[in-house]
């Protein structure tokens, strides 16, 4: 039982990060109808920016802020300089361009920083706090939960309580009508990419210290899990991304804990396959609205 409780909390902690990363994918899907396969590489690039600042200043928090800012800027540049010029008539062209972007970013990062794992520190201890004899969550896990929760609440408020959020939602759902109503749809699209990229950068900052360290490919497997989470929840649904992220996090933790970590990539792919076969739109897809 103790093991189950530990794995549950561990899974929720992993799931929170996956939820944030899945949310980044959902944001871009809702804004541009693109599955951004470059999300992981973009997030790693932002994390490297943070690493540079932390190394230069010795401050984790300055590096943290620089990575988030870097994420915003990378999102703007990718949308304005690359994705805006892609032929949207064929979804395949967007996928190919995104994959090309992954190769370019990873190659450039490898050339600049090298292909070795770099140490990524944490601002709080990763030693689990115990209740009784059961180790539950570390201070760092609590920080992860807090950061992800803050982002979720912030995004929810942005989308539901502000005029910018209303413009962003309208631009995503009905770009032509939105233009007729005076909305700068191109600007909203750029903002969507910037926000998604910053959220992806945050996820990278949170997850990389718990893995082997900073590396151009550090987010490759995380991307697969987060993509699964987004599909499980429904690519259109931010709450779905959160539920999907937590679900995948728990499954990864249980499978890793009871069957061994070698099996976890297969477990993710089995889950992805099962969802695509049984409910391709995801658990929270909004097909009713789309068909109306």
């Amino acid at each position: 039982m103790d093991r189950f409780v530990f794995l549950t909390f561990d899974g929720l902690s992993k799931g929170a990060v996956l939820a944030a990363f899945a949310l980044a994918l959902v944001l871009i899907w809702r804004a541009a109808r693109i599955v951004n396969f470059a999300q992981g590489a973009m997030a790693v690039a932002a994390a490297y920016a943070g690493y540079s600042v932390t190394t230069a200043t010795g401050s984790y928090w300055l590096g943290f802020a620089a990575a988030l800012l870097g994420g915003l800027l990378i999102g703007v540049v990718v949308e304005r300089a690359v994705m805006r010029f892609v032929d949207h008539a064929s979804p395949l062209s967007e996928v190919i361009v995104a994959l090309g972007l992954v190769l370019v970013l990873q190659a450039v990062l490898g050339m600049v920083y090298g292909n070795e794992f770099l140490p990524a520190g944490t601002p709080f201890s990763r030693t689990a706090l115990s209740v009784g004899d059961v180790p539950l969550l570390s201070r760092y896990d609590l920080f992860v939960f807090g950061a992800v929760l803050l982002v979720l609440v912030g995004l929810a408020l942005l989308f539901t309580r502000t005029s910018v959020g209303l413009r962003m939602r309208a631009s995503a759902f009905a770009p032509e009508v939105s233009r007729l109503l005076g909305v700068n749809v191109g600007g909203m699209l750029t903002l969507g990419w910037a926000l998604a990229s910053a959220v992806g950068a945050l996820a990278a900052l949170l997850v990389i210290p718990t893995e082997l360290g900073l590396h151009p490919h550090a987010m490759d497997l995380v991307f697969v899990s987060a993509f699964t989470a987004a599909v499980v929840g429904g690519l259109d649904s931010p709450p779905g991304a959160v539920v999907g992220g937590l679900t995948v996090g728990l499954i990864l933790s249980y499978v890793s804990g009871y069957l061994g970590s070698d099996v976890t990539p297969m477990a993710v792919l089995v889950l992805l396959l099962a969802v695509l076969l049984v409910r391709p739109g995801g658990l929270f897809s909004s097909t009713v609205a789309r068909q109306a």
Partner: protein
Amino acid sequence: MTADDVILQVKGLTAEYGAAPVLQEVDLTVRAGTIAAVLGANGAGKTTLLRTLSGLVKPSGGEIVYSGQPLLGVPVEQLVRRGMAHVPEGRGVVAELTVDENLRLGGLWRRDRGDAAKALTEVYELFEPLAQRRRSAGHQLSGGERQMLALGRALVARPKLLLLDEPSLGLAPRVIAQIMALLRQLRDTTGLTVLLVEQNVRSALSVADEAVVMSLGRIVTATSADRLRDDEELRHAYLGF
């Protein structure tokens, strides 16, 4: 007719979809404070005419003058700020947003927040069913309610010229009559100018002051709505009934 009377002047407007011409040398004059009906069969170019006027389709030739200012090259997003509102075919309600969000969207560009809020209140007074369904999503509304919502959202912007595409599409005759009566009321009380694209000729002529008939991308006749309605020979020649 003086220059001050004219709100919209179109000269030699031409547009293509690929190699196929959809508007050919269209000339059109719309007087301020009137309802002008654009009639014609499917594929005549009526919807394309409205989409070209609002900048959604780029013309290959001709000129558009609105309120004395040339309109070509003005971004679509700017037109609503100049007083032109376009309610597209199929109503253009954002199905995922609530009634209230759809209506607020119509006035977000306005700097005068007080007047935008006042316009929103007026729309709710004008369309009572919408006031009762503020929190309903667009996809939960009936066809008539959606048309009200699309019209109301355009009115929140307090337009001078309303481009209205097929408002009667799929609606019951009673609802169509209500919408036409509303257009007449808006023209008479606010001086709103309406360019009304309709396939329902009888409804359109019941409310319009002027009428133009389009065929194969050209305007084949432009006359008063009364004349087109009452002159059986003319009606038969251009509208086939």
